[in-house]
């Protein structure tokens, strides 16, 4: 029983990070219908910026993180203004392919700037200091990142559902032209969404880095898992992304523990196929309708 609980706790800890990645993907998808394949690489880039500020510039952890989130947000918004918007004639699929280009560009830039060797991220919480609840062990860092993850998720929910900016985002996502006619600054809203989604990714990257170590390819797996979580929860539902991430983390941990550790990695993809076949709108998504 203690073992089961330990697996669940581990699953929740990693699941909260999947959820953060998924939130970034969903946020952008809701507003622009673009699946951003550069999300993982934007996150990696942001994480490396934080790493550089902490180690090379010797800034404090807090300041470095804030600056790196802002930098990543600016890169995301700039990508929208400089590349996606001028390519407005492109089909949706074309725009998705453009994000693949951005992914390759960022990956190359990260490799050139910081090299390919694995690095350790300085982090204020320890991953070897552990708390014991009975026989279940939780590391300080897992607990911390779980808490930060929940706070960020709640913050996103409030922003989208309870503020005027969120209202504007939802309006743009429902009908871009109508929103424009009503005086909503559509371009700014798109740019803001790109920026926010990118910053969310960077936050996930920074929380992951001390656990996964830091290299230019660190987000490869978390991005795919985040994507699977988004599909599982419903790709246009923010609460769905959060629930999907946590659920995927736990299911994966239990599958690895009691079924097969060899096929654990494959599970996320099986889930994508199963969800798309049985319930394409995901767990908490609205019924799938084509936008007209």
């Amino acid at each position, binding site marked *: 029983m203690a*073992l089961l609980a*330990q*697996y669940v706790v*581990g*699953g929740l*800890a*990693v699941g909260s990070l999947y959820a953060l990645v998924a939130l970034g993907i969903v946020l952008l998808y809701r507003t622009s219908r673009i699946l951003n394949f550069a999300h993982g690489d934007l996150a990696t880039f942001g994480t490396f910026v934080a790493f550089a500020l902490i180690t090379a510039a010797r800034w404090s952890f807090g300041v470095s993180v804030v600056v790196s989130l802002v930098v990543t947000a600016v890169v995301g918004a700039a990508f929208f203004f400089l590349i996606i918007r001028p390519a407005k004639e492109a089909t949706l699929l074309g725009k998705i392919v453009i994000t693949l280009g951005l992914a390759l560009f960022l*990956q190359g830039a990260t*490799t050139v700037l910081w*090299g*390919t*060797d*694995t690095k*350790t991220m300085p982090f204020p919480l320890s*991953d*070897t200091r*552990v708390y014991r609840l009975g026989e279940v*062990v939780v*590391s300080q860092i897992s607990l911390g990142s779980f808490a930060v993850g929940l706070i960020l998720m709640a913050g996103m929910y409030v922003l989208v559902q309870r503020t005027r900016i969120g209202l504007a985002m939802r309006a743009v996502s429902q009908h871009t032209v109508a929103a424009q006619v009503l005086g909503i600054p559509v371009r700014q809203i798109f740019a803001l969404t790109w920026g926010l989604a990118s910053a969310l990714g960077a936050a996930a990257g920074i929380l*992951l880095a001390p*656990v*996964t*170590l830091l*290299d*230019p*390819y*660190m987000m*490869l*797996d*978390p991005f*795919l898992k985040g994507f699977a979580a988004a599909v599982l929860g419903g790709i246009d539902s923010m609460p769905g992304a959060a629930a999907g991430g946590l659920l995927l983390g736990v299911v*994966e*941990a239990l599958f*690895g*523990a009691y079924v097969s*550790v*060899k096929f*654990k*990695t494959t599970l996320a993809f099986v889930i994508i196929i199963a969800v798309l076949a049985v319930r394409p709108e995901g767990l908490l998504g609205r019924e799938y309708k084509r936008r007209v």
Partner: protein
Amino acid sequence: MKLARIGVFATVLVLVATATVAQTQERGITDTEIVIGSSQPLSGPAAFWGQGVGGGMAAYLQWINDQGGINGRKIRLVLRDDSYLPPRAVANVRELVERERIFALVSLIGSANTFAVRDYVIENQVLWITPTADANMWAGFRNKKYLFVTYPGYVDEGRILTSYAAKNEGAKSFAVFYQNDLYGQKGLLGIKRGIAETKTKLAVAVPYEVTDRDLSGHALKLRQSGADAVILYATPTQGALIVREMAKIGYSPKLFSSFTLADPIMFQLAGDAWNGIILTAYYPVPGSDPKVDAMLETLLKINPQLRASPFNALAGVSFIEPFIEGLRRAGRNVTRDGVVQAMESLRNWNGDVIRGVTFGADRRQGINKIYIIKSENRQYRKLTDWIEYPVGF
């Protein structure tokens, strides 16, 4: 009509003539240059290995060229990135052979990648120097005339490491954490043989995928097995992550690992958890041998970035040293068969890094010995003398 026929005939004649000329001129050799090529994971999950090995080879060749090259020819290395993906390795090798027209293929990291290009390279009779992959795959393989290997087999290594752990460290039951591809599977096979030899027990074998980053579940599985020794066949990232995860849940068995994780970066990535781990080595580790230290010094002078991965850079040197010696012995008139003959004449030959290399008419396995080292206070200490294993090919 007749004129056209004559024209066609003439063209055919010219084509045949040029083809004959091209055949007599050795591929990849000019008056001033010898072109060699390699495909390495310069990006992707194994980039750390590829950058170190590729960078080490490039720096070593620059050092050779700065001294005037070999018999008046400089050596040019064409490096291609395969991201550790077998299909890209295949495309790279084809390009290197057919377009770059390389004289020899050197290294090529990854057992799966090597496996993917193996038939093509052998069929095209390309000189291939030390594919950086499980050497045991060559035992029983035919047509190895142009292949030379100075890299240990993971099966031999796994067996020796396990047997050492059982006999000298008192290990009774083993848990194995391995990469789920040819590299890890061959290591596991060797461990199983070692276990059979020493009548110990395999408690559990836990595989991971090369992209996996969350290893908390894997660590729990290892602990659950109750094994008193854990052996790693992993990349530096996953190797570091698993020992950290094990430390986190308070599981501290005796640790063993393949030489693939000997690079000092592990001290930094895994921290204190790396202290006390026992590994193998197939060339003298830096700090234990003046010639190796001097070579490392030379490499770092040429490319200071190699400081991040000294072991891999030296490994890169160890892969091509015997080939450079072969070229030297072959003389000014370089042909593939001439180099093969020259390399077959190496008997217990010592390079700056690799030691005791022997090839022969029927022998393509250049080295058949490793030794055991232990990490202590961020240094490696030699535990045994060279341990020999049978020559398999």
